[in-house]
């Protein structure tokens, strides 16, 4: 703001009075002069209001560094961060460099701080770096590595190589004789895997430090605490007898999952999805996962408001619900057993008995069970036994042999276990009349484990070729 306007008289009232002694002073000139005076007076009043409060004291914020005389020395001038190409005044300017406070003792224009410091242009007033552990616990380092009381006010590692240390043995009192037990015991309070971080730093040399994770419990041993740690980082060499500040930062407890939106998930430590949640409106049923003690099985249950609810397992795409990832356990094994399974359709490569692999019981019409394997046809064939004989269709037949008129052998691809099987053989109606009926007879004497004989006779009790020779074998496969 500029200074108030200067007042200069514009009319010579003396000359006017001398030449016109009988006339009054010209009123317009008087007003003009008074108006000019008012302008200056008003500006002076405005300027005074800037520097004087109504109580007569100096106005707040009206005096700064510039208003003080250079010769005035009261305490420290406010320190500033050091800057190059700056004019510094001796005994007047203070700067911070690397945690230290310096006073300019030779007026100069700054270049490089280290050069100026070496030239004695600055005087170190205080090193704040060495003052950081004024608060907190201090312990003296002991370079023994055995598990034991390190001695009053001391601590040690369990390994001479800091990077290999897995234990901190810390005395119950620090080097000032203060009890540190409550503080040390709190190291394992967190429920997280990493319960916190321990920072150990040499008081006189901050370049020597070590950082550990607290990953185990704190043991209350006689006179000292045994802290299980995992090494993270360190620098410099720990020297026995030197004092170190020990600081502990506690990790938070593992939190609950909290409310999840539809599609919300729980991630693993690699930030990949581990569980995904699906949400429906007004849900009343949910899944419960229960752990188990030794000898008991954990469970996944359907629970909720409904009395009877299914637990649905849904595979993706063409995937399937399998009892075990290795695919080798079946429903009848001791590891996976369901008392009763309800399915609409079973798709499988094999049905096998659990107690006896070759015996699969099937519920009969009453309460008794029958054997599935014994009820199956182990070989069947339908043959045109006329002309050049030809199989119409078959199962487990490798060949058919035209032995003679009305006599045929059927070779089995998979042989029978023994020749004591049952073979049902039949012929056909040649013309629709009973007298033309062809009857099939199994010739047991010609049966072997790998071949079954079908003989066809007509109503005249003579061998006869049939266009439809059928054979079905029941028994045990080899």
């Amino acid at each position: 703001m500029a200074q108030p306007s200067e007042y200069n008289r514009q009319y010579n009232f003396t000359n006017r009075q001398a030449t016109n002694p009988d006339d009054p002073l010209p009123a317009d000139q008087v007003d003009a002069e008074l108006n000019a005076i008012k302008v200056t007076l008003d500006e002076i009043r405005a300027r005074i209001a800037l520097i004087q409060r109504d109580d007569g004291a100096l106005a707040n914020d009206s005096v700064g560094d510039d208003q003080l005389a250079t010769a005035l020395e009261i305490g420290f001038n406010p320190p500033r961060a050091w800057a190059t190409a700056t004019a510094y005044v001796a005994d007047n300017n203070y700067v911070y460099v690397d945690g230290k406070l310096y006073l300019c003792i030779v007026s100069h224009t700054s270049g490089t701080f280290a050069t100026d410091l070496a030239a004695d242009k600055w005087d170190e007033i205080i090193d704040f770096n060495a003052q950081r552990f004024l608060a907190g616990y201090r312990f003296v380092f002991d370079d023994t590595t055995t598990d034991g009381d390190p001695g009053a006010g001391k601590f040690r590692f369990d390994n001479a190589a800091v990077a290999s240390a897995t234990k901190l043995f810390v005395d119950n009192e620090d080097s000032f004789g203060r009890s540190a037990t409550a503080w040390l015991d709190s190291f394992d309070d967190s429920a997280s895997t990493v319960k916190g971080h321990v920072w150990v730093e040499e008081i006189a040399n901050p370049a020597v430090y070590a950082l550990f994770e607290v990953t185990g419990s704190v043991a209350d041993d006689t006179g000292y605490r045994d802290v299980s740690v995992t090494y993270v980082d360190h620098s410099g060499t720990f020297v026995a007898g030197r004092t170190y500040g020990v600081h502990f930062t506690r990790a938070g407890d593992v939190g609950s999952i909290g409310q999840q939106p539809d599609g919300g998930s729980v991630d693993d430590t690699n930030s990949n999805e581990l569980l995904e949640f699906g949400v429906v409106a007004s849900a009343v049923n949910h899944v419960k996962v229960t752990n188990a003690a030794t000898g008991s099985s954990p469970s996944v249950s359907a629970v909720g408001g409904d009395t009877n609810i299914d637990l649905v397992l849904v595979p993706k795409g063409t995937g399937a619900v399998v009892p075990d990832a290795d695919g080798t356990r079946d429903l009848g094994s001791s590891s996976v057993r369901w008392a009763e399974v309800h399915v609409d359709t079973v798709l499988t490569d094999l049905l096998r008995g659990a107690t006896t692999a070759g015996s699969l019981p099937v519920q009969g019409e009453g309460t008794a069970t029958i054997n599935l394997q014994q009820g199956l046809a182990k070989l069947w064939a339908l043959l045109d036994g006329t002309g050049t004989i030809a199989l119409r269709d078959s199962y487990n037949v490798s060949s058919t042999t035209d032995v003679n008129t009305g006599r045929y052998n059927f070779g089995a691809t998979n042989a029978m276990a023994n020749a004591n099987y049952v073979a049902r053989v039949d012929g056909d109606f040649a013309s629709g009349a009973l007298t033309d009926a062809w009857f099939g007879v199994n010739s047991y004497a010609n049966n072997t484990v790998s071949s079954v004989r079908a003989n066809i006779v007509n109503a005249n009790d003579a061998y006869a070729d049939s266009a439809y020779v059928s054979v079905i074998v029941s028994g045990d496969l080899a």
Partner: protein
Amino acid sequence: MTRLADLPLWARELVARHVLAPVEPRYCIAWEDPFEPDAPLKVTIPAPRWLAMALAGGFLPPVEAYLRDAERGESEPKEHPYAPPIGPMTEVEAMEYLVMKDIPRRVWGEPTNRPRFAIVRRDMIPADRTHRSAWRLTDLTTRTAA
């Protein structure tokens, strides 16, 4: 996932019914049993579904498994249902396999002064069975030679 080769033979046959079309054989085995010198010629024809498995490969066990099983007692466990399957065969190879599997060894595995079997085309077998009891291998081989 169960592999085809892991299944027993009878289960592989069930798979074959769904994945292989039957192959009508072009050849058959005409043979005579020295134990039945008065019996007529026998004609063994491969089952079309068996031939399909033989040509496809991966279903049938090696014929040696059958031959070893033939030496075993009736109550002894058999090898051929669980032997690993062999690869594909030509139709002629399949016929030779069938000779050893379904024809008695005395027909093809013993020295003789005359042939006891022949692998012939099916159309060489008479379709007229009026004199079926009179069929002889010599008639067939003579006709073949002619």
